[in-house]
């Protein structure tokens, strides 16, 4: 803190930097402008990305980079131009920063470091569907300190970037528009599993939201148990935002077809039996 103590009565620092109310106000103005510029650029890039639909990830990867570049430039401007810190003052400032971290800002710094690693490694991008800790949803923003994701229930979850350093992150689409979606059905052991499998396969392939190609394969798995059989349909959707419309479309049409064909749901024996997954 030595350089701060060198501020003279007229508000100047003995060796280089001039700390006066005007400088502080200028620094605040720069920070506010940087924040506003970051928001505007982020919103603009998001608007461009939305217009590109399935190719939007080519643009969304620029959003955190842009924000970090703007904030970095603002910090550089404040330190070098407004405060004009000398090397000795920078060292002193580092000491001050170290003390601040020790006093309780270490989490904030960890979050910012986590944010920087996010920008470099890009384990997920804005628009990806990820599961972090107990939360699953679409990434809507990657900031300096935290990442925001929107859950299927329209709840915004703010996850500190530090979480990324310690916990596993599951990315469902890895920055591609297409995403594998799994739809499960349970039928009685006496039901015609072959016919049921055909119905599920047709429902997957004829959905408006499906995408099939050599890189985007589909499958229907049949599982057997004492009291029920499972049919697990897996197919890619054209856009990860269609995950739930796809599940709904396939489920509705499959259940209608099952009803028409007399394919029944499992009957759990009286007095117990194994519960279905999810019950």
């Amino acid at each position, binding site marked *: 803190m030595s350089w701060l103590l060198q501020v003279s009565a007229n508000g100047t620092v003995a060796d280089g930097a001039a700390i006066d109310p005007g400088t502080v106000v200028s620094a605040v103005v720069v920070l506010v402008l940087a924040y506003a510029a970051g928001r505007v650029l982020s919103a603009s890039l998001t608007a461009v990305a939305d217009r*590109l*639909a*399935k190719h939007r990830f080519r643009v969304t990867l620029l959003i955190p980079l842009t924000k970090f570049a703007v904030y970095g430039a603002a910090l550089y401007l404040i330190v070098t131009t407004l405060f004009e810190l000398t090397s000795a003052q920078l060292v002193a400032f580092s000491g001050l920063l170290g003390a601040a971290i020790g006093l309780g800002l270490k989490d904030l710094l960890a979050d910012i470091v986590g944010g920087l690693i996010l920008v470099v490694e890009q384990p997920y991008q804005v628009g990806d569907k990820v599961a972090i800790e107990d939360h699953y949803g679409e990434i809507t923003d990657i900031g300096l300190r935290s990442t925001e994701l929107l859950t299927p229930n329209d709840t915004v979850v703010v996850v500190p970037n530090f979480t990324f350093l310690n916990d596993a992150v599951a990315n469902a689409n890895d920055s591609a*528009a*297409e995403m594998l979606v799994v739809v499960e059905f349970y039928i009685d052991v006496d039901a015609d599993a072959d016919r049921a499998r055909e*119905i599920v396969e*047709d*429902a997957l*392939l*004829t959905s*408006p939201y499906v*995408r*099939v*190609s*050599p*890189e985007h394969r589909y499958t229907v798995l049949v599982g057997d148990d004492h009291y029920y059989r499972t049919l697990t349909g897996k197919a890619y959707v*054209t*856009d990860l935002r*269609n995950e739930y*419309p796809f599940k709904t*479309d396939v489920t*509705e*049409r*499959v259940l209608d*077809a099952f009803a028409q064909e007399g394919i029944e749901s499992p009957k759990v024996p009286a007095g117990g039996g194994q519960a279905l997954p999810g019950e």
Partner: protein
Amino acid sequence: MTIPIEELRAAGLGPQVERLSAAVASYLDEDKTLDRVDSNVAVVSDPFGGRAALLEYAAELLGDRARRDSISGIADADELPDIEGETALILEGCHYLYRRDIDGFDRLEAFLERLAMTNTLVVTGWNRYSWQYLTAVERVDEAFPLTITLPPLDAEQIEAVVRAHDDDTYPEYVDTGEAGRIKTIDLVSHDVSLPGDRSVSVPYLRPNVSWLVSWAIWDDAESIEAVVFEKLRRLSNGTPGIATSLWEQSVRDGPEGRTIAPAYIDDPVDDCHRISDDAAFLLWLVVAMEGVERAQLADMLDQDAIGTEIQTLANKGIVRVDGSAVELQPLGLHPAVAELRRRGLIWT
């Protein structure tokens, strides 16, 4: 609208015509009659892309030995065209052999099964977008050793088609000093192959050189023609049926009798942005099948009421309602395809 084969050949589709000729000649050679390898032919094109002309040509080559049939709408699974007992069959409208619904592939699968068990030469016509979809989900391409895909035409080829197609007095070119709406720079993409059978699409800007050159020599009479046909190509995306339709419309609606000028050629179709998911899927069905009954569209959309979606697309000039059928408008094709591609509903 059927474009005579001479026009397509003159327009530069000679290689496609020759491949079809060779397949027919090979089949008619007695020594190869029992060789089924080349006995199934698929002619694939965009709607209005000249597919009917190639099938017409195949019928001419085969004469009495061929029976012609056309599937004009989606029908039940048990209604299949007869193949057995025929020497050759020319079958248009094979994109009606399926419905995009549960059990909707039964008819197509039965047809492909018959196809695999016969020595009959079967020349089939397919819509490009149905073909792409069915290749992905039903591997329909494996049943057709010879697939002839009609490519888009360039401006000179469009000119050849138009000149051969227009029987009336050839219109006079008028210099109005305006070109109408046209892009001078295109955003195009180039596929770059990567190891492991993967490819990446690299977008880049491409200036429209012929257009810029034609502007530079605007005073020359030929340059007006160049601009006219370049504009026809761009608005039709090189699809011959759309280009001739646009030509006829522009000449007919020109302000001074049978005249044509770049400014007279206009695309009245709005873009397809901001349509609902249901309208987009309905559009895919109409583009891929070229005309579908309303009731069948409602079945495939799994909805009772689809009037709003049809009205939205009709108001934009993309589709038209003809009785109970919803059909694609020629000038609606490429805006529709652009939107479907943007949404990922067209998979290539």
